[in-house]
C-alpha cells in the first residue's frame, strides 16, 4: 500500500516536471538566454610589423564571428596597424593565420571601423561607454541595448594590470572595470563575454564588479602568452597559441550548434598553450553550462510567428504628383568639381618672395670674410678700396 503511494507520488512528480519542461519548451527559446541581438567589439592594440600575430588574431575572431551570423553593422573592429598593406608584407593584401599560408583572414569584405592611430584608449572607452561626439557615424558606435549580448576581444601586449595601446599608452584594469560598470548603469548590455589574449591577461579581469560578466584570459598573472608558429616566408609569428586553439574550437561551431561555455573553458590546456588560461564566472548569473557559444559568438535570432493581421479595406490613395501651389521647379543637378582642373592646368608659376640667404651660404661667407680680415688686418683695407 505504501509502495503504491510512493509510486504515485513519484509519478506525479515526474509528470509535473515533464509538463513544466513541455510548457517551457514552447517559450523556451525566449527564456533561455534573454537576449535579442549580438554585438562584438574586437580590438587589436599593437603597432608595427613584428606584431603581425595580433592583427591576425583579431581578424580570425572577426571571421568566425561573421561566419556565425553577426553582421558588420554589429561589429566594431579596431586594428591598430595595417598588416595587409604594410611595406614589409611579402604577400600584399593578405593576412595569414596559419603557416604555409592556408587561410587568408583578410579577405575582401573586411570592415575596419577604427584603424591606425584611431585605436586609442580614449576611443576604446568612448565606444564602450557611448560618449562619442555627435558626428560619429553609426558604424563606429556600439548601439547596444539592454537585450544585447556583447563579445569583447582584446589582444596585444599586456602586463600586470594594464594593456598597452600602440606602444605609447595603456589602459588599466580599474579603468576597464569602471567602463563596464558605466555600461551596466545605462543597461547597455544583457550579458558580456570578455576574452583577452595577452601576457598576464588574467590581471585585466581581476577588478570587474558589474553583474553578468564572464571573462576568459590566455594566461595567469606572472605568465607570458606565447605565440604559435612563425612562417618562414613572411618572417613573423602568425598567431598566438590561445587564439589559434580557440579558432580551432570555433571552426566546429555552426549556427545551430549546442556547445556551451564549459567547452570553451577547456580550450588550450597547459600542454598546448604553455601558459594557463583562466576564466572568471562569479559575476555571471546563469550557469556557464547552460550558456551556448552562439549566444555570444553568433547571432541566433528569436522568431515568433505572426498570428494576426489587420484587415485593411481602403483603396490606396493616389499620391499627388503635383503639389498644391505648383511652384516647385526641378533643379538641375550636376556633380561638383572635385579639383578646379582648368585652373590648375593654366596656372602661371607663382612669384616667389625673395628671402635673404641663410644657413650654409651665410656661414660660408662669414668664414671667408673672417679669414680675409684676419689675414690682411683692417688697416690694410684702405689699399684695397
Amino acid at each position, binding site marked *: 500500500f505504501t509502495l503504491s503511494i510512493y509510486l504515485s507520488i513519484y509519478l506525479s512528480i515526474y509528470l509535473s516536471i515533464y509538463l513544466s519542461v513541455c510548457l517551457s519548451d514552447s517559450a523556451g527559446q525566449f527564456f533561455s538566454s534573454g537576449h535579442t541581438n549580438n554585438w562584438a567589439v574586437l580590438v587589436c592594440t599593437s603597432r608595427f610589423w613584428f606584431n603581425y600575430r595580433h592583427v591576425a588574431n583579431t581578424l580570425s575572431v572577426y571571421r568566425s564571428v561573421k561566419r556565425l551570423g553577426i553582421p558588420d553593422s554589429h561589429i566594431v573592429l579596431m586594428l591598430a596597424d595595417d598588416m595587409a598593406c604594410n611595406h614589409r608584407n611579402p604577400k600584399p593584401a593578405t593576412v595569414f593565420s596559419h603557416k604555409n599560408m592556408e587561410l587568408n583572414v583578410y579577405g575582401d569584405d573586411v570592415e575596419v571601423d577604427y584603424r591606425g592611430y584611431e585605436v586609442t584608449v580614449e576611443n576604446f572607452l568612448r565606444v564602450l561607454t557611448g*560618449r562619442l561626439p555627435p558626428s560619429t557615424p553609426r558604424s563606429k*558606435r556600439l548601439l547596444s541595448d539592454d537585450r544585447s549580448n556583447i563579445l569583447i576581444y582584446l589582444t596585444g601586449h599586456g602586463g600586470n594590470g594594464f594593456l598597452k595601446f600602440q606602444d605609447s599608452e595603456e589602459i588599466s584594469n580599474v579603468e576597464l572595470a569602471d567602463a563596464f560598470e558605466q555600461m551596466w548603469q545605462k543597461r547597455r548590455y544583457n550579458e558580456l563575454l570578455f576574452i583577452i589574449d595577452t601576457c598576464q591577461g588574467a590581471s585585466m579581469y581581476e577588478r570587474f564588479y558589474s553583474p553578468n560578466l564572464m571573462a576568459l584570459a590566455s594566461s595567469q598573472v606572472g605568465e607570458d602568452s606565447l605565440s604559435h608558429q612563425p612562417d618562414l616566408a613572411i618572417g613573423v609569428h602568425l598567431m598566438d597559441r590561445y587564439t589559434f586553439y580557440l579558432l580551432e574550437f570555433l571552426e566546429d561551431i555552426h549556427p545551430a550548434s549546442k556547445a556551451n561555455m564549459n567547452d570553451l573553458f577547456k580550450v588550450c590546456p597547459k600542454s598546448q598553450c604553455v601558459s594557463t588560461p583562466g576564466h572568471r564566472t562569479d559575476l555571471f548569473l546563469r550557469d556557464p553550462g547552460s550558456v551556448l557559444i552562439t549566444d555570444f559568438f553568433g547571432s541566433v535570432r528569436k522568431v515568433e510567428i505572426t498570428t494576426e493581421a489587420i*484587415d485593411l479595406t481602403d483603396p490606396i490613395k493616389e499620391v499627388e504628383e503635383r503639389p498644391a501651389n505648383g511652384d516647385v521647379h526641378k533643379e538641375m543637378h550636376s556633380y561638383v568639381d572635385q579639383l578646379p582642373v582648368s585652373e590648375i592646368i593654366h596656372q602661371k608659376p607663382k612669384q616667389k618672395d625673395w628671402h635673404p640667404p641663410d644657413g650654409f651660404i651665410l656661414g660660408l661667407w662669414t668664414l671667408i670674410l673672417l679669414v680675409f680680415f684676419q689675414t690682411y688686418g683692417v688697416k690694410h683695407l684702405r689699399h684695397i678700396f
Partner: protein
Amino acid sequence: MFLSERRRGQLAALSIAAVVIIVGVPLWWRTTETYRAWLPVSQIKELAKLQLQLSADVEVVFARGTVTPEQQKKVPLTQTQEEERAIDGDLIILFLILLIRNTKLESKFFSCHVLFLPEDTALSESPCGSLVVYVIPESSSLLPEDVNVYIGQRRTALLRIGPQMRVGKTLEQLLAHLEPRIKQVLQVMSFSHNDITAALSDRVRFSPDNKESIADSMRAFKSSPGYEITFSLLNPDPKSHRLHWDIEGAVQTYIQPLLTKLSPVANFSIDSQTLYYTMLGVNPRFDTSRSAYTLNADSLAHVINPVEARLGSNAASSNPVLNFLLYVPDAQHSPLYIQGRKKQEVPSNAFHSPRWGGIMVYNVNGFYGSEPEFPVDINIDMAKVMGVFLAQLRLLLGVQSSTPPPGFLVARCGSTGLADWELDRLMWSRSVENVATATTTITSLAQLLDQIGNIVINDNIAQQVSSAVTSLQLAVAELEAGNLGFALQYSKEAILASEKAFFDPSLLHLLYFPDDQKFAIYIPLFLPMCVPILLSLLKIVSEARQRLEC
C-alpha cells in the same frame, strides 16, 4: 643693526616656510582643482525614490433602467479610489482613480438593436488618459449573451450590470458591485500592475508571474525619441518575376495614419528599397501533402542573418531601425509556406523577430495565368501585405494585444490600426518608462561624478542635468494630475536632457592615478624644497627649547 648670521638664517627659514604654507599650498590646491559646476544633488536624491502617482479619470454614465430616479439624485458626484503598490521595495506607486459619477440618462443611443456606440456621435471627445464607461441594464440586447463588457475603438466601454443587481437593490450595493468591474475595465484599457512593472524593467529585478510579459518586454523596442522603418522587397528571381509594388501609396494610405497617431510617442522616418538576387539562406523542404515548399519554425531563426548583411541602412541617427521584408519566392520554390512549431498552417505567412522587424512571404504563383511567359508582371496586393506589416509594427512598438479577460469583447481597431485606448495604454507605459529611465540615468550620473573627483563638470552638463530634473518633476506632477499628453511630453524632454548629459563626450574619465603614482610625481618636486626648510625649522625649535632649559 646687523643681525647675526644665525639669526638671519633662522628668519630666512621661517619666512620661506611661511610663504610656502600661506601662499604656496592654497595656490597649488586651487590650480590642481578641476572645475565642477554645481549639480542639484538633493533634488536628484528626492527623485531617485520614484514615488509615482498615476491617476485616470473615468466618467460613468448610467443608462435608463439601471438606476431609479430617486437613486439618481443620491449618486455622489466624484469618488476616488486609491491603490498602493510597492514594487521592489523602494518604489511606491499609487493608482489613484477619480471616478466622476455622472447620471445622464441618455437612452436614445441604446434603443436600437444595432450596436450603435455613442462614440460615433460627437458626444464627447475624451481627452487622452480618460475613459467613459456606459452602464447598461442587464436585460439590454445591445451586447451578445455571453459578453458583459464591450470595449470600443475610442475611449469608451459598455458595461452590463450583472444579474444579481436586477431590481430593488440599494445604491450602495450597486456601487459596490460596479467598482471592481470598472477597475477591471480600467486594467484592460489603461494600465495594470503588470504593465507598470514591465515598464520599470530597468530598475526592477523582474520576477514576473506570467512569462508572457517577459516575452512582451523583450519583443518591443525600448522607448526612443524616434524610429526608422525600412520596407524592403526581396526578389531573388527577377528572370521569372517582374514585381511592382506601390509602396509610396501604400505607406501613405495604410501606415502613415498609424504613425501620425503615434506622433506624440515618437518620430518615425520611413524608407523603402528593392533587393534583387537575395536568397533566404535556408533551403525549404517540399511537403508532398500540401504540394508546396515549407519552412518550419526552427529554420526561421537562421533566415534573418544572411539577409541582414545585404540590407543597407539609410539611418544617420542612432535611432533603432525596424526592417520589414517582403519576400517573393523564386519560381522553383513556389509556393512557399511557413509552418508553425506544431506544423500548423500560418494564415499570414509571416514571422517577426523581437526588436528587429518582420518578414512576410508572398506567393505569386497564383498570378501566373494559363501560359506564363517569364518574366511575369505581378502587381502586389499591398492591402494584404500592409495588413500583416501593420500587425507586426503594432507588436514591435509595444501595443500589447494580450487576450482580454473572459466576457470582454474588444472592437476591432479601425483602419489606422490603433484604437485610442491602446494609444493611451502605450502612452501610460511610455511615460512611466521614460520617467524611470531618466531618473536612473540622472542618479547614476550624479553618483559617478561624485565618486570620481577628477572629472570636469562643465556648465552645459550642469544645465542639462538641471533641465532634466525640472522636466522630471513636471512629468511626475502631470501624471498625478492625470494629464497624460503633457506628462508624456515632459518625460520625453527629461529623457533627452538626461541622455545628453550622461553621454556628453567631455565626461570621459581617463585618468586613474593610483596612490603610489601620485607620490612618485609629487615627491621629486616638493621633497628637495621641503627638506631644508623642515630641518632648519627643527633646528630653530630645538635651540629654542635649549634656551628655555638653560
